[in-house]
């Protein structure tokens, strides 16, 4: 009998919804140069999907320790990728943050040069950061607590 976490209805609905929420977040990150949104909003939405899963199933010590290094890894890779793309501009063009990829046709998904890659890196970074913050708060045990 599982007394941690919420009831069975909430657990089932969370399991069904988390895929759609993460897909919606990836859509907002990928179309960041065509529609409103971008890396920050999409990253926070992806983090929201994972936080829903934690809240519905109850965050315990073992699961949070297992997933904390994954969140930290995603966050570190995100900001490292952002810096790497900026340094590519320095090596190829001569200026930091120069737009060196091919611009392509306007209004297509793979246009805009450096901007979709930067959006993806920022999305990974923000999602990892917020899931890490939430795990640190949910798995906290104060000194006088049971």
């Amino acid at each position, binding site marked *: 009998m599982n007394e941690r976490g919420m009831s069975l209805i909430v657990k089932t609905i969370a399991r069904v919804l988390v895929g759609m929420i993460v897909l919606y977040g990836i859509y907002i990150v990928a179309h960041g140069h065509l529609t409103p949104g971008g890396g920050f909003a999409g990253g926070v939405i992806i983090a929201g999907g994972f936080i829903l899963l934690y809240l519905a199933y109850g965050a315990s010590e073992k699961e949070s320790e297992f997933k904390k290094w994954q969140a930290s890894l995603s966050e570190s890779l995100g900001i490292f990728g952002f810096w790497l793309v900026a340094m590519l501009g320095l090596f190829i063009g001569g200026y930091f943050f120069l737009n060196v990829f091919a611009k392509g046709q306007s209004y297509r998904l793979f246009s805009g040069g450096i901007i979709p890659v930067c959006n993806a890196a920022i999305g990974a970074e923000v999602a990892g950061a917020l899931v890490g913050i939430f795990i*640190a*708060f949910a798995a906290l045990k104060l000194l006088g607590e049971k």
Partner: protein
Amino acid sequence: MIYYFIAILIFVIGLYGLLVKRNLFKIIIALIIMEYANFLLFALIGFRKEGTAPIQPIVGGKVFVDPLPQALVLTAIVIGLGTTALIVALAVRIYEKYGTLDIRKIKKLKG
């Protein structure tokens, strides 16, 4: 012009909460209200009366609102989230050590 006044009035409400209140969480809420007043002021400055959202359409549309204050506010919102998370974590540790959230009782500085 009245809109700018109301935005700065909300900032002053947050400043009152920061200076007068004694509970630590009320001070955190006052900091968040001051940040919201800043975002509001920047978004009001960049508004243009007959403009639309700054997304370049395929045909037509030449009058946009100013995109530069919106870029600054976008950065500021995410930074506000970071500082809120850090100061709330510090408040939880202060409660664990002192047993109270009253700032007049948290006085034992060491070192």
